């Protein structure tokens, strides 16, 4: 429960300055900004040097694609959206200059899905797949986009294509993920567990992805200990992955272990999706930093709204509902989010927001998804039952 803030605290919050006026530093030696190249990250320096080479050789298609790919990887690793923009700029001239380059269409498709242009991304990736049928990436990305849009038959068709060109574990993971959404959770979990045990040679990144998926399935099967083991094995691979961190933090939060979630995410304030988990964990643990995390998030969501961004509406909905306690606004975000993204956690968000806002009908699309696919998850089934009760 909330406690009333003391009047002194209210006053202190009210008096903190919102914006400083423009200023002139006292001397030329004063450091006014630290650039990202200071991070001891060689990949930042590497891409900067490649960009300079590109300026000298603007018609080098392969170099251009290399720069774009590296920028996109940087964006994924650091959660810095500027790098996505740089990658888009790098490939922009190629639409006319290299219309039959499979790698161009792949990078373009990946960038389009980042900005939630799912239809554009599917078309680009289709073209990439046609130009280079041996590449596993176009069907893998297409399957992932189909999953986000709850088009499971389409996803399974892409997984079948993947089987011919990718690591067997990759194809198996793809299929199991789709099956686990359509009423075959237990067989999918068992098959993927077996496939993982048989693939000691698989790349670490692939193992991490499979472990994360297995953990999520184990949670739905209520095998908590197994889920935790999958998460820990995945973390032990030593690869930084925001999605894994977010999923494990959610697991810890649901099990009322917010302190561990804070320890896990303490250096991740710069990522919106992980800052949200920090704010939730901070609130649950009554941490002194919780208010600061919440107000940082508020500021970021407000900034995104000002520029018209809609990339993190699921997170915005969860923030409004679980941190701010504003069910009506949470529902607005959840409804808009569900129009483009239809994964289980999107459905769960819509159902919870609809319940909290006392508008059970708003969750109908999520209920229809749950029923028509036979999605298995006791938490979602319980929400559906509550919604049915609230409608009466």
């Amino acid at each position, binding site marked *: 429960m909330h406690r009333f803030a003391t009047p002194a605290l209210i006053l202190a919050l009210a008096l903190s*300055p919102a914006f400083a006026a*423009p*200023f002139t530093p006292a*001397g030329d030696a004063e450091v006014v900004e630290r650039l990202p190249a200071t991070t001891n990250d060689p990949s930042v320096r590497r891409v900067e040097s490649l960009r300079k080479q590109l300026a000298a050789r603007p018609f080098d298609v392969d170099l251009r694609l290399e720069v774009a790919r590296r920028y996109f990887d940087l964006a994924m690793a650091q959660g810095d959206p500027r790098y996505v923009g740089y990658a888009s700029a790098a490939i*922009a001239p190629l639409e006319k200059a290299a219309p039959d380059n499979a790698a161009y269409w792949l990078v373009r498709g990946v960038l389009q899905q980042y900005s939630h242009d799912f239809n554009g991304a599917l078309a680009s990736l289709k073209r990439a797949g046609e130009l280079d049928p041996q590449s596993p990436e176009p069907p893998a990305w297409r399957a992932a986009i189909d999953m986000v849009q709850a088009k499971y038959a389409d996803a399974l068709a892409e997984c079948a294509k993947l089987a011919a060109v990718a690591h067997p574990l990759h194809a198996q993971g793809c299929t199991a993920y789709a099956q686990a959404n359509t009423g075959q959770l237990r067989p999918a979990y068992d098959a993927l567990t077996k496939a993982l045990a048989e693939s000691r040679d698989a790349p670490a990144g692939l193992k991490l992805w499979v472990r994360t998926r297995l953990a999520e399935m184990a949670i739905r099967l209520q095998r908590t200990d197994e889920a935790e083991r999958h998460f820990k094995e995945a973390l032990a691979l030593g690869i930084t992955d925001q999605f894994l961190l977010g999923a494990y933090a959610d697991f810890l939060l649901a099990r009322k272990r917010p302190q561990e979630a804070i320890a896990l995410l303490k250096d991740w304030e710069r990522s919106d999706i992980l800052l949200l988990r920090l704010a939730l964990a901070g609130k649950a643990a009554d941490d002194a930093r919780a208010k600061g995390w919440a107000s*940082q998030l508020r500021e970021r969501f407000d900034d995104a709204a000002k*520029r018209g961004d809609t990339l993190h509406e699921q997170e915005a909905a969860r923030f409004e509902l679980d941190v701010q306690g504003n069910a009506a606004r949470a529902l607005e975000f959840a409804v808009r989010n569900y129009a483009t993204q239809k994964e289980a956690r999107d459905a769960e968000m819509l159902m919870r927001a609809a319940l909290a806002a006392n508008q059970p009908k708003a969750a109908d699309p999520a209920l229809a998804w749950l029923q028509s696919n036979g999605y298995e998850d006791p938490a979602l089934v319980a929400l559906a039952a509550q919604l049915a009760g609230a409608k009466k």
Partner: protein
Amino acid sequence: MRLLAFLAALLLPLAAAAHKPSDSYLTLRADANQHEVAVRWDIALRDLDYVLELDRDGNGQLTWGEVRTRADEITQYATARLTLEAGDKACAWQTAAPLQLDKHSDGTYAVLSLTAKCEPFAKGLRLHYALLFDVDPSHRGLVQWVAPGGASSQALVFGTDNAQQPLALQPAGAWQTLRQYLVDGTWHIWIGYDHILFLLSLLLPAVLVRVAGDWEPAPSLKRSLVEVLKVVTAFTVAHSITLSLAALEVISLPSRIVESTIAASVVFAALNNLRGTIEKKRWVMAFVFGLIHGFGFASVLADLGLPQGALALALVGFNLGVEVGQIAIVAVFVPIAFALRRTAFYRHGVLTFGSIAVALIAAYWFVQRAFDFQGPF
């Protein structure tokens, strides 16, 4: 000035960690004589370094010297990518003040102060924005436009898909702003059942007087009207105070506390009609709980969004709207209640059972809002 810079510098380590997409911030303010536009333009140093390599020694740290000595180049680079046209003629850029700095949530920004000298505005103003689009198509220019003689600003977003936009010469008139918020305020009290039920609970006994523990019809309409006036005025004054304080961001309370206290206030007001604990001074209760209802109105106002520069006008409009809605309710309620006050139907059916029903509904709201019983959090 120095103190502010110092405070901002203290905030830097925290703020610099955050990543957000690249934006620049422009405020364009037209002068009333219609041939000049004053421009303040904040551009991230990180973005300027990306295109102009400000970090000459390549140590990853930008010093003020590295920025200051390149000020002319920065201004040239920027103004070459921003065109303001009056009619068909581009305005001429002039530097109005030396380059300064400011902190935003994601780092330090260069602040350019410019003046655009233009032909008369009569043939229309257009802004073409092209900064950084060649290197980062996800960049946006966030513009606050203040029309000639305008008090408030209009927000415009410039991106690769909408790099040219007209700037409206007519400011959103004061009257228009006032009217819009007045309508919103009226609408909110009309759909805000909790406010209506609270007010009605306090007004139900206004046409009666308690004599020896029992309700008697009020002797005169005047007496009832005075009672109604006291309650409505107290409620209005109280919620106006907190609505203004919250809208001006002087005080903020978590919405769950506000919403559940509002529900509790309805329960309390309704139960009071049965027990009669607070008899003579219902207006005091209207005032005390009115304070918390004001926070509820404020959250609605915050959701509507407040125009920068016309905050006071929007506040007044919204408040007036709430009053209009209240008066409409009172105007319907009082004559009917006064006419029915002698009947047993009013004294038992409406007052007693009505209050019980209201208390039950509000108690349900309270449980819902205070304990948030859905969901795992």
